[in-house]
């Protein structure tokens, strides 16, 4: 009986390992193909297409050189960084008080406020009213046109609110008894305990703003303000319209390589940030917070 149980457990573990390996391969193989495509030399691509493996001597950084060496790349990267940092900061500054307010059970009008927040979540106003608002505020050609409309995500607010609600009420009460007002409670008690949620939601916002592509096209008319995703798109469009190329655009990379390199370039900053923030996702937050 015991042996049978052990054998079942081993079989289960093997099955689980096989299943997870398959899932892992499903995730890794496309990613591997993107990497190979990004580094494949043009002559091999035009001769053989995209192989599964490249020999160590066949890799090339040409696609990256072409994208990173573009005259507009530094400016576009800087624009993306500004939009991401500014957008994330503004979003957190606006989301934290809203989430904290909604998490306060005795907040006057809390239900109405919550209904209004959920109303926006359920019924999006659509493109035109926001466009009218942005142009009416004379924000065209301004980063704030990209940043303000999505600055408060209802989903992120609800996630943060739920985190705040999970914090022991005793902590807040203790601060209130000591004479702290609500802002002081938020500042001195809640925020120091909220690193994980601030970093998590901050990452959500940062990824959103880093990848933002459509609203810059819509609201920014000045090419010098365009962020990285727009520049990468423009480079790829130019590369694909090669029947109209009459200038000296002798690309040393294939379009597929440029696309793959573009994907990796835009992914890398977020991939670098993610592991650093990930440790906060699961870290305990309340150790020693309340003493009996």
């Amino acid at each position, binding site marked *: 009986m015991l042996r049978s149980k052990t054998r079942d457990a081993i079989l289960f573990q093997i099955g689980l390992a096989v299943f997870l390996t398959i899932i892992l391969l499903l995730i890794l193989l496309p990613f591997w193909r993107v990497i190979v495509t990004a580094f494949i030399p*043009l*002559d091999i*691509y*035009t*001769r*053989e*297409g995209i192989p599964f493996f490249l020999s160590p001597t066949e890799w090339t950084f040409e696609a990256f050189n072409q994208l990173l060496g573009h*005259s*507009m790349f530094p400016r576009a990267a800087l624009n993306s960084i*500004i939009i991401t*940092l*500014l957008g994330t*900061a*503004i979003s*957190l*500054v606006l989301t934290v008080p809203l989430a904290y307010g909604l998490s306060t059970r005795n907040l006057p009008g809390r239900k109405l406020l919550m209904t209004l927040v959920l109303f926006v979540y359920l019924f999006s106003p659509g*493109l*035109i009213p926001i*466009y*009218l608002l942005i*142009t009416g*505020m*004379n*924000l*065209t*050609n*301004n*980063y*704030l046109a990209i940043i303000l409309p999505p600055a408060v995500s209802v989903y992120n607010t609800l996630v943060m609110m739920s985190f705040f609600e999970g914090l022991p009420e005793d902590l807040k009460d203790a601060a209130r008894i000591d004479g702290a007002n609500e802002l002081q409670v938020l*500042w001195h008690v809640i*925020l*120091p305990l909220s*690193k994980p949620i601030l970093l998590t939601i901050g990452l959500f916002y940062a990824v959103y703003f880093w990848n933002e592509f*459509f609203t810059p*096209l*819509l609201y920014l*008319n*000045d*090419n*010098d303000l365009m962020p990285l995703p727009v*520049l990468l798109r*423009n*480079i790829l*469009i*130019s*590369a*694909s319209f*090669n*029947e*109209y*190329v*009459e*200038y*000296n*655009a*002798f*690309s040393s990379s*294939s*379009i*597929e390589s440029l696309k793959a390199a573009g994907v990796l370039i835009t992914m890398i900053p977020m991939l670098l940030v993610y592991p650093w923030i990930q440790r906060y996702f699961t870290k305990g937050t309340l150790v020693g917070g309340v003493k009996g």
Partner: protein
Amino acid sequence: MKSWKMIFIVCLLVVSQVLASCAPAATPTEEPAATEAPAEPTVEPSPTTPPEPVDIVLWAQATVTEAGAPPDDWVAYDIIREELNINLTYVIVPTGADGEAKINAAAAANDLPDLFQMVSANNDNRGALLRLVDLGLMAPVGDMMPLMPERVKLHYNDQLALDLVTFYGEQYGLPEPPPIPKREGLVIRKDWLDKLGLDVPTTPEELFAVAEAFTTQDPDGNGKNDTYGFGGFLNGEGLGTRFDFIMGAYGVPGVWNFTGNGDFGLNVRSENYPEALAYFKSLVDAKVIDPDWPTLTRDDFRARWKQGSFGIMWEDFAALTNKSNYEPFDTNFPDAEWIPVAAPTGPDGDTYYGVYTGRGQIFGVSQKAADDGKKEAIARLLEWMATDGYYLLGFGEEGVNFIIDDNGNISTEGLDPVQAYTAPERQPYTQMRNQLIFYNSEQEIVARYPTYETIAGRLMDPMAFLGFFQNEPWVDGRGIQVILPPANAADFNRYYTEGLIQFVLGQKELNDETWAEYLAGLDSLGAADYEAAAQQSLIDAGLLK
């Protein structure tokens, strides 16, 4: 905890600083010229006081999207300001759906620019213009035509194009000449023909035989069974436009019957259509066409001919022969040679290369601009672009960015390569060229597609390919621009396209019964009404008697 507070405070400081630095800048249209004093509203202009400059906002697509817009200190802006008394703001609009969304959003806000290019996700520029006209957002432009005589002569000289932008008795669009017309064609690997001792095919049967030989007889001599006769991909409705030369041999190229033979309507109504499909199917069944054709993208297709995968294809002349495009193929196969060939002639003597739709860019003037009295200034600007500003906006400054040689051709010989108009660094300065400047003169085309030597020392002349393609028998299908899609266009097109592909791939048997079922299915989706409406639109536009 202290460090946490510090982070928060720093964040707030950063936010406040960046917010301050990002304070809304005045839009360029509102910005007066730097050298001008503010105008006194109460002062009447006198003959000695120059009139106040007119602000004109132009939205147009870029010729080279990656290159960006010209810088603020572009000499053309100064010339336009000084000579035309116009403050021009040039905004590059995105291509496709993104560009359409941008224009639609501006239209909804009644914030359309003064002069702008119609952008449509499905290449229906005329439809995009008509929608804005119906919303009352566009100004008639017929009265501007006499103000720009040279431009009308060079750009707006096609009566059909003008008719297509005339609605309710008024001309609303400025139809720019289409990109080089009839620029695609059928090409074949001459080195493969020579190696196998074959002649250029002239009939569908001969074409099949050559394709079969290319597939089975190792035309590249590498000892591998790795070549196909044909290569292609799907683009557009039905079987796309890249196999029209096959359908043309049976008199049914394209979706609509514009050939003038028989009644106007969908080509699938023709009794020749199933015959043409059967021939296409025989190519697929014999595996003489690259089997990936239904799913290949254009880029994949182009990568494959550069890899020497097939020997017969339909391709754009510049995508094939322009030096930057041909170079990878040339490197792989220096002794190879593509030659243009005529369309095959079918059993009834039909031969059509393809359908020429003549879609070009359309510009329009917003009603807002007309209300502000800007039409005269816009006409002045457009006329200048076609006359004094032509070379500056098309090529740059003479002697610096280009020269005109003894033969009257544009050249960069002897110029600093970085300053040459062909250099990547110079592309921002000629971004308007394909939209508003060029009109397909011989000088332009020769300059854009020069002759060069291949690696093996053979002379490659893109113009020879273009000339060959243009002289082939094309069907004049420009009337397609007035045909409005049906309300159920998505369902209709899906059924139409998927059905044809299923027949060709053998997923559905092709016989009289199944073909009749297919047509009945189209009718159940309103094909007859669609055809009647299309016919009426063509009659109304004077394109069909």
